[in-house]
């Protein structure tokens, strides 16, 4: 799951990033309202955490405009105030949830999970390709009913491939979406290394191959899929 944290307090932002990365989210951060609005409108995201006091553009305006640009993006609002008027204003402008500082990371994390359960239809939260099944919310992977343990990066890579099942994905696309980097894959073989790890773990042999190599292009996941339109990819 891809998350944007919009918070101008650097230490707090770093703690939130560390906490959510440990929970296997792919995290982007922004400390300015104008920059955040651009990311919320144009970047592929599953959820955003938005502080209200921001330089550049205030959080409420970011919320209003982002809901016009991308109404389906769930947004949890953080604020240092807890007065009812502000809560009502946020909810009326499209906030999906609201938490007042000081809050517990555990509570924020639980609220995000609950929000993702509410906003993602079952068919979108569970991806299947052939006999491979990936639950995006429970972070569980099974093949032919047998559970497979993956690292955070392997999970993100498999999720990206399954979201794009049937499509060709280049190594550069994988690097950008899974590693969150904009660099040429010419200088690194990290994608191929991780694809090999994945193939080994999901038992992707010649007879039941799901991840296919497209020479000179990248990879393609093939198989019967119940995947609907990808959430935001």
């Amino acid at each position, binding site marked *: 799951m891809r998350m944007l944290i919009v918070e101008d307090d650097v230490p*707090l932002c770093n703690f939130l990033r560390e906490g959510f990365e*440990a929970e296997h989210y792919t995290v982007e951060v922004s400390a300015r309202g104008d920059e955040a609005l651009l990311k919320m409108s144009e970047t592929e995201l599953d959820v955003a955490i938005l502080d209200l006091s921001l330089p550049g553009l205030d959080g409420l305006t970011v919320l209003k405009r982002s809901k016009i640009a991308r109404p389906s993006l769930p947004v949890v609002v953080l604020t240092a105030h807890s007065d009812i008027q502000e809560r009502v204003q946020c909810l009326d402008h499209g906030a999906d949830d609201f938490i007042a*500082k000081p809050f517990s990371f555990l509570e924020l994390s639980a609220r995000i999970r609950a929000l993702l359960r509410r906003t993602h239809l079952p068919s979108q939260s569970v991806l299947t390709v052939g006999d491979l099944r990936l639950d995006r919310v429970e972070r569980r992977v099974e093949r032919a009913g047998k559970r497979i343990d993956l690292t955070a990066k392997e999970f993100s890579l498999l999720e990206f491939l399954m979201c794009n099942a049937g499509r060709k994905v280049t190594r550069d696309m994988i690097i950008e979406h899974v590693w969150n980097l904009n660099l040429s894959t010419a200088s690194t073989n990290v994608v191929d290394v991780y694809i090999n790890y994945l193939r080994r773990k999901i038992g992707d042999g010649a007879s039941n191959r799901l991840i296919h190599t497209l020479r000179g292009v990248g990879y393609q996941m093939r198989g019967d899929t119940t995947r609907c339109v990808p959430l935001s990819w």
Partner: protein
Amino acid sequence: MRTAFLVTERYEPAAAIERREVTEFLHAVSQPMTALICALEIAVRGDRSTQDYRRLLDQALTEAKRIATAARDLRARIQRP
């Protein structure tokens, strides 16, 4: 404008001033308090190296000092004659 501000300040009841000061204090400490709680919650989750614990505890200490500074500022403002 300045005169109006001084008049308001002079005649604002002590209880209202204290309430305003406390509200400002709570606003000022909400950020470091959240950071402190999150740092400690993240620190106690899962196994970490000694170096990693030290890093998180150092950061938590910095946040605790931010709260202490805000508390000192509040006391100085309230005790100002």
